[in-house]
């Protein structure tokens, strides 16, 4: 497969997944804003969200340091000048699909094209910060549709593997960031708030990961930060868990391995093993944050290495 083609399908996978992860992240913040909490907690929530998504600086450059909900929502969801907004991700996914429309199935191309066209024409009218909930639902729905089209129509060749690698690397990244946002908010949430509300943000997070019912079904644990992190990190059977994502990155990388990718595949294996054999004991309250940081660093390293080994220009000889 052409390196440039692999590059486009890989980024198609990443941007599509990023749009969905952002929608889920936004979902958590938005639902929390509907709960009885202090205004300070809410503003801090938006601040943490932007910081953890590495968007605090570009937001501050545009709007200053005050995090207002409607502005933050606009910026994260609809801002065409913010290359990391959901709308921009949908456009980037579509541009990458367009560049390889001859390689992916026509149904895939039509789906990504239609998603972008519909988002573009609805963003100023039907989709606004006011009814962001509807937009989030719509983004998730389009993501479900795209996933189905990929599963149901794409040839299982290298292109598929690269798309999977992009998708699950991005998912590992997005879910890790989502957990970090919540963890960073812990202290603020508890200050001045009854402790009985403690579990609420984490319940919201589980719902945003489409995993609340699964959590209830497979776990006897109470909803506490450590239990939720353990669940989201180490469950092999939860579709959006870190372990599941790392496993799929590893599997798909092995399928496309080439002469120069030995070390990259090994590192993907290390990340997989780390999550496969991790337990709550390895975390500890203070350790959770450094654990999540470590996961993020490993994901970033894999991303760099994959770009070098497969997607850039393969060195001759």
């Amino acid at each position, binding site marked *: 497969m*052409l*390196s440039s083609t692999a590059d486009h399908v890989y980024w198609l996978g990443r941007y599509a997944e990023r749009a969905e992860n952002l929608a889920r992240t936004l979902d958590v913040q938005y639902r929390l804003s509907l709960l009885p909490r202090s205004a300070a907690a809410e503003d801090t929530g938006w601040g943490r969200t932007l910081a953890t998504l590495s968007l605090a600086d570009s937001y501050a450059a545009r709007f200053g340091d005050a995090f207002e909900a409607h502005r933050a929502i606009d910026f994260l969801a609809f801002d065409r000048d913010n290359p990391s907004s959901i709308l921009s991700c949908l456009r980037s996914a579509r541009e990458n699909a367009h560049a390889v429309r001859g390689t992916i199935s026509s149904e895939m191309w039509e789906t990504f*094209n*239609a998603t972008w*066209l519909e988002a573009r024409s609805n963003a100023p009218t039907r989709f606004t910060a006011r009814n962001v909930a509807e937009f989030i639902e719509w983004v998730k729905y389009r993501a479900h549709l795209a996933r189905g089209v990929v599963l149901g129509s794409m040839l299982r060749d290298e292109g598929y593997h690269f798309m999977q690698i992009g998708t699950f690397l991005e998912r590992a990244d997005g879910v890790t960031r989502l957990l970090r946002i919540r963890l960073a908010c812990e202290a603020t949430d508890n200050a001045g708030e009854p402790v009985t509300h403690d579990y609420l943000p984490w319940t919201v997070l589980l719902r945003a990961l489409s995993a609340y019912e699964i959590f209830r079904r497979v776990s006897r644990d109470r909803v506490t930060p450590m239990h939720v992190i353990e669940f989201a990190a180490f469950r092999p059977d939860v579709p959006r868990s870190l372990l599941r994502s790392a496993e799929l990155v590893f599997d798909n990388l092995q399928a496309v391995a080439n002469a120069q990718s030995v070390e990259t595949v090994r590192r993907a294996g290390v990340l997989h093993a780390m999550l496969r054999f991790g337990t709550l004991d390895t975390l500890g309250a203070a350790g959770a944050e450094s654990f999540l940081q470590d996961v993020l660093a490993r994901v970033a390293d894999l991303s760099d290495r994959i770009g070098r080994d497969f997607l850039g220009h393969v060195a001759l000889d």
Partner: protein
Amino acid sequence: MDRPDQTALPHDEMYTADGKVRPSYGVYADWLIHQPEDVLRQKRAEADSLFHRVGITFAVYGEQDGNERLIPFDIVPRILSADEWRKLAAGLRQRVQALNAFIADIYHGQDILRAGLLGPEQIFCNHQYRPEMQGLDVPGGIYAHIAGIDIVRAGQGEFYVLEDNLRVPSGVSYMLEDRKMMMRLFPELFALNRVAPVEHYPDRLLENLASVAPAGVADPVVVVLTPGAHNSAYFEHAFLAQQMGVELVEGQDLFVRSGFVYMRTTRGPQRVDVIYRRIDDDFLDPLVFRPDSVLGVPGLMSAYRAGRVTVANAIGTGIADDKSIYPYVPDMVRFYLGEEPLLANVPTRILRRPDDLAYALAHLDELVVKEVHGAGGYGMLVGPTASTAEREDFRLRILAAPEKYIAQPTLALSTCPTFVEQGVAPRHIDLRPFVLSGKEVTIVPGGLTRVALRAGSLVVNSSQGGGTKDTWVLEG
């Protein structure tokens, strides 16, 4: 010289002069009168929305926003009888064979110049002549592997060749997509009529390209070379690559090493044997042609000259699709094939000739004057509809460089019923069939019918408001 009759009403594809339905349209016309107009309107809206979703567009990509324009699709097909097609196909085959023989001759022995049919200055002073091709043998002696020949009907319905497109002719994807759309919108029509299929064009194209691979390559790797996603015909490039199951590449995906062309893949370099290029000569190799081109492949020309890769169409075919050479194509048929041309040229005055020049200047208000290097309907004077000022402006331009112009009678192009705002009404059309030349000559029955959607307009170009129709060849 003969002049097509310009006084009578133009030939209509569906109706005879006394209002009877022609036999080829019989079944269709019966069906059409039973279709309520709102159903047709709704079908057309359905076609528009499908074309949009599928992204079958003629793109303006400047904005990065996916702002594409649709080429309007008309739901009334253009129908040719088996007999009409047989004659047309024989003429096309003959013409393209002569054109390929001409290009081969120009880049080798130049017999046609020695015979005095053309002056050397007409070749060697022409920008389309590529000295780099002189003396180079290409596989099978074929240069124009894919030709799009523009055909119009005038007078009593006689066919005329308006233009030979031999460089990178486009439009075949619309031929295929228009058929797909018609079958989707009106499946019953295909049960009622025996319409010759066109869906196998991509297979034929691939076979054709493989048949001209460098000697000794058993299982040639074919690629489609595109200038990229921002090119207006990108949809077609991607479509053809996908339909043939080959890689769609840009210049940066290819490189030349040790005389061979390779593409960069996730598993290292892979040899490329045949390049179906959709980039003009000028941009193919910055080492030989335009040095500022970033679309091409440095060193491609050296690999080509060494016979290690086939480029389709060959470099330098432009010499035969130039409007200054066009008037001589009937002579080429006689010269190379020893046959009488089956397809007529539009009678053309060559303004480098003094008496043709005098005639043209005296009849500017009736003629179409074309710049010999113009394309896409640009650089053209349509005498009868031009203003006095425009004609005077053209007169000065012609006098300054008469060799840059040709003049033709304003043809009353045939019309075909077309579904427009007011309902079904006649509109002028042309036809671009695609001729594939390799080990054999193949023509998929039909082609792209373009239609001028404005009442009375003769300009069918998509860049100037033209639309397309499905083209049916009935099986006899």
